[in-house]
């Protein structure tokens, strides 16, 4: 309106008397503060000290559309030297990626032979994300992810034996055969699952970052989730909590372009996921997930920025890693939602091939040496299959174990 509001009550005293605060007070004079309260309100009626605490300025914030803060890690032309990585380290990273690849290729095969059942979601194509993130952070920075979890578990150091035995549902499995493919856990390596409900792990990951800060460990938690999971309310609530409490956590969306058969374009009002950090005042980071060095560099850089000093400070990041899944969503996906051309184009960016290429071109290893390494990895995976096959079924009684830490018994029959 044209009239400044301040003038209102002065220019129109009667109006003021009829509509403004003073008459509010009159009305309130009869309010239950002074009268016996009905039972369901009594609880709130305990006398509260009268002095008001220092309240934050409550004037609504004027819209200050600042440019979103986005950092991009792509095409930086890194070399291992520029990143301070030794040739041995790059070879070790390569071997780790290869281990994930070979492990899952064999798992798919074993699934076909019905040694493995249930759902089996392969990470093949995304190995640069797991390996880059793990090498870019500390071994005890907690990691949590969804059901597409073999890659991160192996990157973090889960033994292929324990992993394969878990897939086989055997006593020697990482969860004694109780979790299966979607529920890998390896506490010793600070890998906290392996979660089957889309998005459900995100708040839990924020809580892990909260604990790092509370305890002053200097750790930063990483919560991985998919491009489909970002549409769960859990993401929104967890992101705001992380920002509000300055929690050292990386909220990492592995954007592999599809949620089952639904492309990001068909699941979002705006397909640019990097916009997701903005409402929370969170810095967004976009990373080329097919490039091991970019992922490594991105995680190393932001993880160190995210860490708290003791129980002070800390800064969460929203990280979009752009990657791609080469296999179907699970083992029974006709994949009509993408063209063969698209898939083949993506396979030309195979993150493992690119590292191999890099190692050879930079004289860090010979093709022969890397092929030998591949044979070694394959042998390791073969041993894992043998271990799994030899591992006994869990005893039936074990079903009643591990439910409770105390009074661990079936409560009801």
């Amino acid at each position, binding site marked *: 309106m044209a009239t400044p509001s301040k003038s209102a009550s002065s220019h129109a005293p009667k109006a003021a008397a009829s509509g403004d605060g003073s008459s509010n007070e009159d009305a309130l004079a009869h309010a239950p503060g002074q009268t016996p309260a009905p039972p369901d309100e009594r609880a709130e009626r305990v006398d509260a000290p009268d002095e008001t605490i220092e309240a934050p300025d409550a004037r609504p914030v004027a819209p200050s559309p600042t440019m979103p803060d986005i950092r991009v890690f792509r095409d930086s032309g890194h070399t291992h030297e520029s990143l301070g990585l030794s040739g041995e380290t790059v070879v070790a990273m390569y071997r780790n990626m290869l281990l994930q690849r070979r492990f899952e290729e064999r798992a798919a095969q074993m699934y076909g032979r019905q040694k493995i059942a249930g*759902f089996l979601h392969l990470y093949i194509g995304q190995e640069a994300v797991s390996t880059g993130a793990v090498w870019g952070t500390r071994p005890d920075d907690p990691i949590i992810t969804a059901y597409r979890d073999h890659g991160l578990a192996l990157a973090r150091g889960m033994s292929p034996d324990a992993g394969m035995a878990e897939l086989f549902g055997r006593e020697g499995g990482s969860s004694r*055969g*109780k979790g*299966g493919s*979607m*529920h890998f856990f390896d506490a010793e390596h600070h890998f906290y699952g392996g979660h089957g409900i*889309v*998005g459900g792990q995100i708040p839990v990951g924020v809580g892990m970052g909260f604990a790092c800060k509370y305890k002053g460990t200097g750790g930063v938690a990483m919560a991985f989730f998919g491009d489909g999971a970002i549409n769960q309310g859990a993401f929104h609530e967890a992101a705001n909590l992380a920002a509000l409490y300055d929690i050292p956590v990386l909220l990492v969306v592995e954007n592999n372009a599809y949620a089952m058969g639904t492309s990001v374009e068909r699941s979002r009002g705006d397909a640019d996921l990097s916009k997701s950090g903005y409402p929370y005042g969170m810095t967004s980071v976009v990373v080329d997930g097919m490039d091991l060095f970019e992922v490594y560099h991105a995680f190393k850089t932001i993880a160190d920025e995210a860490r708290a000093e003791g129980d002070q400070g800390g800064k969460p990041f929203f990280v979009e890693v752009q990657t791609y899944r080469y296999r179907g969503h699970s083992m029974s996906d006709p994949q009509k939602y993408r063209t063969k051309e698209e898939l083949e184009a993506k396979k030309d960016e195979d993150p493992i091939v690119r590292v191999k290429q890099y190692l050879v071109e930079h004289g860090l290893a010979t093709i022969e040496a890397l092929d030998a390494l591949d044979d070694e990895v394959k042998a390791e995976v073969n041993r894992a299959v043998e271990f799994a096959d030899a591992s006994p079924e869990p005893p039936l009684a074990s079903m009643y174990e591990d439910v409770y830490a105390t009074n661990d018994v079936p409560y009801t029959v």
Partner: protein
Amino acid sequence: MAELQFREALRDAMTEEMVRDENVFLMGEEVAEYDGAYKVSQGMLAQFGPKRIIDTPISENGFSGLGIGAAIMGLRPIVEFMTWNFTFVAFDQIVSNAAKIRSMSGGQLKVPIVFRGGNGAAGQLGATHSNSVEALYSNIPGLKIVAPSNPDDAKGLLKAAIRDDDPVLFLESELMFGLKGEVSDAEDYVLPIGKARIAREGDDVTLVAHSKMYWVAMEAAEELAKQGIEATVIDPRTIRPYDIDAVADSVKKTNRLVIVDECQPFGGIAAEVGFQIQRACFGHLDAPVERVTAKDVPAPYAKNLIEAWMPSVADTVAAVRRTLYM
């Protein structure tokens, strides 16, 4: 009578109702372009187009609420959940809104919506993917719950659910989608919600079981027959309202009751049916009501463990023999 898969019976029910009433639409994850994660809606996008066969993001709470709002406005949404395990993120919409809005509005509004999808364990999927949710939702007044065991009931009851003016939770099973059975080819086949089906008559004991467990009960009955024990088998078909009279009438003849229920035991369907029957048939029971349920621990992944976890024919036969003091 035509022989159809369970999924085909569901598809026929939805298709017939969508042809009959343009206010009916189907919404859920992968129901359209993917033709359904379990192919229940295969071909429906081609037939009805994207306005009425709608793919959703993975936002169960959001699209459940969307469906409720659309229903209040006079549409008749069918909301498919990939499985009922995923409704725990939509629990509030179903329990606080779908179930209660009519009552809180003093009858001004109604919420004609169907929520459907696979329920219960489906092999080796682990604890997050093996919940039998009727133990939870059946406690909630304002909801109706249907859980058919065969394609014929599936078709007749899904058509009834879509036409029903109240929110109906329709529980299916991934393990039964491929199940074949004769389905009535009556012009417009609608079965009443709330009526049990007596599947088998026998004088010695009454077995009650719904959905997948119905087949366990039937197999147990065969096995018992070999042992000279004749069982009546009742498929309640509907959980809420529950046709307790059908069970009571039978127990008054057989004097023994065993409920096979895949839910976790504490406060599950078996507990409620057992409670009501001990009250209704106190003088008639020659033995305590027995139940066979999932074990009271999270569902394990390993093949041998999940098999031991599930209610089995052997467990059922043993429970029946207990009621006969054998």
